[in-house]
Structure formats: C-alpha cells, structure tokens
C-alpha cells in the first residue's frame, strides 16, 4: 500500500510538470553533450593545426602549465562553456519562465559579445607574447642592456590594442584610450621618421648605386673629398680605402656631392 501511494505521488508530480519543461531538460542534456563534443573537437583541431607548438614558451602557456592545463585546453573549454550556456538559454526560453525573460534577453545579447571579447583578449595575449619572443630572438645578437625594452614595448603595444578591441566589444567607452593610442602612434611614426631619415635617404641612394653601378669595387674614386679605392658598396654605405685608412661614407653624401672616377 505504502509503496503504491508513493508511486502515485511521484506520478502526479511528473504529470504535473508541463511538457515544455521536459523539452528544456532534454535541450540542456543535449547542450551538455554538445559542449563536451565541441570542446574535444576544438582541442583536436587546435592541436592538429600546431597551435600548441607555436604557443610553446609564451608567458600565457607557462602560466597555464602552472595550473596544470594549457592554452589550447583553456580555449577549447571556453568554446564548450559557450555552447553549454547557449543551450541553457534556449532551454530557459523554451520553458517559458516568463519572469526571467527580461533579464535573459539582455544576457543573450551580452553573452556572445563577452565571449568574443575574452577570445580577443586571449589571442591578443598570445600574439603579444609571440611577438615579444620573436623580437627578442632577433635582437639577441645586439649586446646592449637597454635593448630589452624593445620587445616589452612591442608586447604591451599589442596588448593595448587587444584590450581596446575587447573593451569595444562589450561596449565600454574607449574613446580616451583610443586618443591615447593615436597619440602614441603619432609619436612613434614621427620619431621613427626623424631617426631614420638619414638611413632612408642613404638607402634610396644605395638602391640606385647598386642597380646602376656608376662605380664598382676596385675603382679609384673621390667622394666627399676622400680619394681611394672602393672596397665595398652596400645599401647604406660605401667603403673607400686608402693606405691604412678606410672611409665609410653614407650613400646619401655620395649622391649629394657626386662621385669623381679617377682614370689614369
């Protein structure tokens, strides 16, 4: 008897629940499975694409390793959670829990943006790390203590831009930051232009000298008052040698002052 009443009670409870709720429960379960599959497939794809190897050695990867995971896994999990949350939203809509409508509709718009922002941040951090490593590798030959600032500068510039885009995604006012970025870029361009003006001028002259070869290695010439035998012409400078002296003359001044070829 007792068992029957309990069973009856349970049956009544179950039949009391509207089919919509059942449907939403099914959707949540499907969402769980789907999120798991998406995460696994994503991880496979990322690993196959060699993302894991290319991330090797970056700061974010090291931090992730400390927590016993890896960047690829984090990204894969994020996509999984995204799918799961999406399914939860769909389930809630299907279940027609009216009181939550207003709140959830806001979330439904905001959530994808947040995900995109997080993804942009992650990519930004990774790219920044990679760029830092790359620049540091390139500059390794230059033994100058202050050179360490250049890779850091590159890294934080990229991070800054990534942050800007991410904040823009979730609708935070970024005007002040954009102005800052603009000022920074203008300063960078102006300083670079001033600093490399001579180099570019020499380079342009060097291209002409290399293509047309008005004088070549072994010719005796006089440039800017220096007479000697040409030893080397490269993009930026011409090396002219006399007895015991080597004059390294920027190509810009070769062009400006003209060349005298000496023929005996």
């Amino acid at each position: 008897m007792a068992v029957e009443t309990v069973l009856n009670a349970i049956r009544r409870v179950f039949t009391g629940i509207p089919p919509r709720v059942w449907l939403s429960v099914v959707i949540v379960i499907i969402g769980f499975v789907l999120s798991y599959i998406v995460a696994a497939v994503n991880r496979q794809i990322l690993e196959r694409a060699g993302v894991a190897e290319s991330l090797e050695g970056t700061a974010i990867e090291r931090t992730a390793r400390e927590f016993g995971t890896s960047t690829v896994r984090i990204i894969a999990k994020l996509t999984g959670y995204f799918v799961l949350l999406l399914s939860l939203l769909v389930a809630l809509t299907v279940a027609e829990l009216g009181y939550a409508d207003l709140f959830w509709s806001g979330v439904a718009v905001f959530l994808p943006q947040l995900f995109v922002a997080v993804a942009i941040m992650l990519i930004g951090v990774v790219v920044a790390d990679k760029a830092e490593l790359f620049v540091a590798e390139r500059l390794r030959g230059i033994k100058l203590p202050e050179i360490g600032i250049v890779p850091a500068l590159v890294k934080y510039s990229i991070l800054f831009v990534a942050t800007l885009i991410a904040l823009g995604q979730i609708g935070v006012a970024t005007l002040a930051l954009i102005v800052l970025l603009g000022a920074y870029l203008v300063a960078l361009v102006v300083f670079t232009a001033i600093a490399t003006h001579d180099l570019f001028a020499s380079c342009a002259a060097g291209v002409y000298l290399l293509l047309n070869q008005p004088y070549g290695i072994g010719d005796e010439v006089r440039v800017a008052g220096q007479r000697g035998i040409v030893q080397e012409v490269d993009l930026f400078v011409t090396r002219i040698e006399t007895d015991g002296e080597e004059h390294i003359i920027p190509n810009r001044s070769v062009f400006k002052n003209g060349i005298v070829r000496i023929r005996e």
Partner: protein
Amino acid sequence: MSSLSDVLSEFVADPDAIVLFSPSRGFYDRFADADSVVVVAEENVVDAEQFVELPLSFANVRDRVRFGIEGAMDDGILEEGNTAVCVTSIFDDENDSVSRVRVNESMRSGIYDLFTNSRADPSVIRDVFDVAIELGKKGQKGKPVGALFVVGDAGKVMNKSRALSYNPFEKSHVHVGDPIVNVMLKEFSRLDGAFVISDSGKIVSAYRYLEPSAEGVDIPKGLGTRHMAGGAISRDTNATAIVLSESDGLIRAFKGGTIILEIDPEEY
C-alpha cells in the same frame, strides 16, 4: 691494467683547462664542477660559458685541436705554458681520445686567425670553404677541377689583377652562401682565372688574371701556378686565397704569402 690507468691519470693530471670538442649535454654536465672548461663546437648547444666556434668540422684532429687551442688563447682562457687536456673524437662522433697539449706560441699556426681575424667575415670564409669542398668532392662533370678564390680586400685585389674576359658577375649581386651559388661557381670554375670575393661575401668577379709580385712567397715546391698566384696575392694584399688543386684535389688556404691550412675535401 693498473699501469694503464696510472698512465692515464698522470696524463690528465692538473690541467689548466679542459677542452671538450662537440660534447653532448650529458657529457658536458659531468664537468660542471671543473674550473675551466672550454667547449669547441660548431654550435654552442650546451650553453657553455667558454666557447670557441668551429667554422668547419675539421676531419683532421690535429687541425681541430689546434683551432680550439688557438681560439682559447685568443680569448685569454689559455696562455703560454698552460697545459690543456683535450677530449675529442677521431673515428665516430663519440669521444674516443684524450690528448694533453702544452700551450706555447709556436702552436699558433694561424688556423684560428684565418677564420676569425681575416679581413672578410668569418662566415664568408666558411662559405667559400664549403663551396671549395663541394667542388673538390664532385668536380666538374666528374672530372677533377681546380679553382682559386681570393677573399677579402677586393678593391686592392681588383687593382692588382686584370680581366681575362668579360666578367660574368658584372652588375650582379650574388653572395657566396646564396643557395644558387654553388651551381653557378661550379659552372664558372671551368673558366680560367680567379674568383674575387669581397669582405661581405659578394662575388665581385670571375675570370681575373692576378698580377701580384711573387717575391718572397714561401710555398712548397711542386705546386703549380694557381697556388703561386694565390700565395702571392695573399702576400701582396690583405686577402685570403683559397685554392682547390686540380692535380691532387686538396684545398689550401693562404694568408700573408704562407700556407695556413690544407684539407682534403673527400674527408668532409
């Protein structure tokens, strides 16, 4: 057997420096507590503090040890009167031999200088050696071929030489070490005359007839005109001459009018 280990322990007793040639990481780590360890290898894979870069993997152990010791002397790690114990390999890549070397100035044969203190960049000299070795190995269409490369101080060399014919490298910007160059030089090696290569590795000219004064050039008797020309131009200018002999197939390097290095391309 005890006498053998006695001899060996005497042999390796109190060195001023231990010179390891291309050691593996595990092998290098075993010397972590030693005072002065010098690593001589093509690449510093073990992150050794004292490192001498080997431009060629000299097949001749004598040359290899000489190069390492001279490099260490140049870096101030070793000085005259020191003893160094060198661990190197003769047969395979494994370490199989130990030699005790007393360092003195007469050890300076100039092999190290040839690569590091020449006018031309060390990498350029190495690239020219690579080209010469390949040329010596394969020859031109199976026949042995000779070649003369004059590296560095190109301006002066060009002034002390004249063109035998039109220069195939005129207005070109080819450098030794470019991938296409080996084939190109192989083709041009059947031309008469010398190749002139600048300090930075640019091939300035082929078909050059060298006109240095041959006074005071000290090269072994029996070598031909190609060697004589190479030796003489290296004495007359600051250039390094690298000569591949057509008759015996050896590569010889000249600097300052004397022969510095002799290698057999077949061993590389």
